[in-house]
């Protein structure tokens, strides 16, 4: 397999960035099927993405408002990698600062340095390199110590493929101060039926005792590619609750790299991927227990219909010294068609003592006996089927506490919220 030349995006880079990205891309190349984390990705499709600096399309996007969940509170909307101030509402309650990444980079670069200054040997894939090079703008969420925010913060990324650049990069930096608590919802959408995509990278830092509720709603059009990477570093006693709904895009990739760096931290990741048509929905989860007495949970559900493909690649990495680790992982899948496919793989590496690690995966089909049972109660076959599928999916939605988000998901999946 040939590796695409980085020069396809190089012409618009600043000289320094171009050199850096080009050099790094030369070394690592684009991922191929030989890379475990990209094994099921449609590489030909990915190869057709053209990245570059953001293009201000300044277009009216009438479809966008209908697609976006209606959530009261501060909002920042990023269109093609640039903050759209018209659609954003940066009014914040005390203790919260919501800003554009480009502004913070210009005014207080030290606040976001960790998002960009990544050592060469840690740039492990091409899309991270591209994100460093081109993802200048996006959102920065900062919550001060000891602040508990009642309103959720909404970060919306919108891909609008442009003939000159069909793919954009967006950066999101979230920092919660000690003992603070906040909810951030990241909605990822796309407009138009053109081919293209979005590469969104989120860097999350949770100080001691902080609690973040983080929701990803990925619903890009099925003509697009959506790449999401979320890097999390957690200090002692912090809590990261991640809820991912990977629903849209021809290829929707949702990757989490969580490092439990301080003792007693908790990461609870759950999610739903629901594929139809020929979608490929890919979850790449990596939780590193780097400190003692941390807890992690990975609970992901997949529903795959038609010719769709689901991927769950879940890693638990218990480092030396991370004694008292309590880690669990589960992935339950429902295949609705003979042509649908799911690839589920646990990866456990345990190098510490007194560790409790559990993992399990199931792949099943709709329970024919349950369908029959429901039909004897008068439910039409399609209705019984719908109820069973929703019942399976709803168990992933149960973890979401924010009503408008629940409503958006249930509406998106086409069923009543019970």
């Amino acid at each position: 397999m040939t590796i695409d030349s980085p020069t396809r995006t190089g012409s618009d880079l600043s000289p320094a960035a171009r050199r850096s990205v080009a050099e790094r891309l030369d070394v690592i190349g684009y991922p191929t099927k030989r890379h475990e984390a990209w094994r099921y990705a449609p590489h030909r499709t990915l190869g057709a993405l053209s990245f570059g600096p953001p293009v201000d399309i300044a277009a009216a996007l009438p479809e966008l408002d209908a697609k976006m969940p209606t959530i009261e509170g501060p909002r920042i909307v990023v269109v093609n990698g640039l903050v759209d101030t018209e659609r954003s509402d940066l009014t914040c309650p005390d203790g919260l600062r919501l800003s554009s990444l480009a502004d913070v980079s210009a005014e207080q670069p030290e606040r976001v340095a960790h998002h960009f200054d990544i050592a060469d040997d840690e740039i492990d894939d091409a899309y991270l390199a591209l994100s460093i090079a081109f993802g200048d703008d996006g959102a920065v969420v900062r919550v001060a110590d000891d602040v508990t925010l009642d309103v959720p913060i909404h970060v919306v990324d919108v891909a609008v493929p442009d003939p000159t650049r069909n793919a954009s990069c967006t950066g999101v930096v979230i920092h919660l101060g000690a003992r603070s608590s906040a909810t951030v919802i990241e909605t990822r959408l796309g407009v138009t039926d053109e081919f293209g995509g979005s590469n969104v990278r989120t860097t999350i830092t949770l100080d001691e005792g902080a609690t973040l509720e983080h929701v990803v709603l990925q619903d890009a059009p099925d003509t697009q590619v959506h790449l999401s990477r979320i890097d999390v570093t957690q200090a002692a006693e912090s809590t990261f609750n991640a809820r991912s709904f990977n629903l849209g895009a021809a290829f929707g990739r949702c990757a989490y790299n969580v490092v439990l760096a301080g003792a007693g931290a908790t990461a609870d990741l759950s999610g739903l991927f629901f594929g139809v048509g020929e979608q490929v929905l890919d979850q790449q989860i990596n939780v590193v227990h780097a400190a003692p007495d941390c807890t992690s949970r990975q609970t992901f559900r997949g529903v795959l219909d038609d010719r769709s493909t689901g991927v769950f690649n879940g890693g638990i990495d218990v480092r030396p010294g991370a004694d008292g680790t309590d880690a669990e992982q589960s992935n339950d899948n429902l295949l609705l068609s003979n042509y649908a496919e799911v690839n589920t793989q646990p990866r456990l590496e345990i190098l510490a003592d007194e560790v409790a690690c559990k993992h399990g995966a199931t792949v099943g089909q709709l329970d024919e006996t349950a369908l029959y049972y429901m039909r004897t109660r008068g439910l039409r076959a399609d209705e019984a089927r719908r109820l069973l599928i929703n019942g399976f999916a709803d168990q992933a939605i149960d973890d979401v506490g924010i009503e408008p988000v629940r409503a958006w998901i249930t509406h998106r999946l086409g069923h009543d919220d019970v």
Partner: protein
Amino acid sequence: MLHVENLTAAIGQTKILKGLNLDVGAGEVHAIMGPNGSGKSTFAHTIAGRDGYEITGTVTLDGADLLGMEPEDRAAAGVFMGFQYPVEIPGVNNMYFLRTALNSVRRSRGDTEISAREFLKVAKDAMDLVEMKQDFLDRAVNAGFSGGEKKRNEILQMAIMQPRLAVLDETDSGLDIDALRIIAGGVNALRGPERSMIVITHYQRLLDYIKPDFVHVLVDGRIVESGDHTLALHLEDHGYADFLNHGLDDAPEQPLTGVRS
């Protein structure tokens, strides 16, 4: 009301029902007893509409051909089956399921749908009948229910669906005496001149609580003996051996002793 004539059912080469005849009149309660493997549950499923059997013969309810109908259409026509093993449906709320079921049947019959508030009233009465608490409705259908709770949920569903014909398949299996009393109480309360029931059971015990108008003995896919409730008492004393070991000609006379009134 229910007319079954020369009914046969087979799975592949295995014949299970071999020419079953039965007539159930309006308001009647018929008990079907028989040893394991005699075809009792298969009979229930052929009435309810389970896939996978090759079926010949006639089954009509109020003159309508049931065998040509999908299970949901049979439900709309008034058939209800209480399962021996009620199915667990994780993630589907019991109340939502029951209301959806009731409204599906109402729609099929051309009735208006029932509102959530009206439904609560209906459900409340049904729950009282089987001594269930409100939290039953908030749980997923049968998920994590005890054996007794599952069976009570079946009777609750029957009370809500108000069927013309209820087929209760081994509703007494796995129940302790208190649960049996509650379930039998529910069934008895639902007896009425317009509602017929077929109670399938292995043991006579249930028939102490639900007194049938007729008892039939099903052996090897056929009804080999019919009588009143005293036939059940004979079976209790003598087992099915008389029917298994001898031909039909040897079937016992109605017992003259041990008759309860």
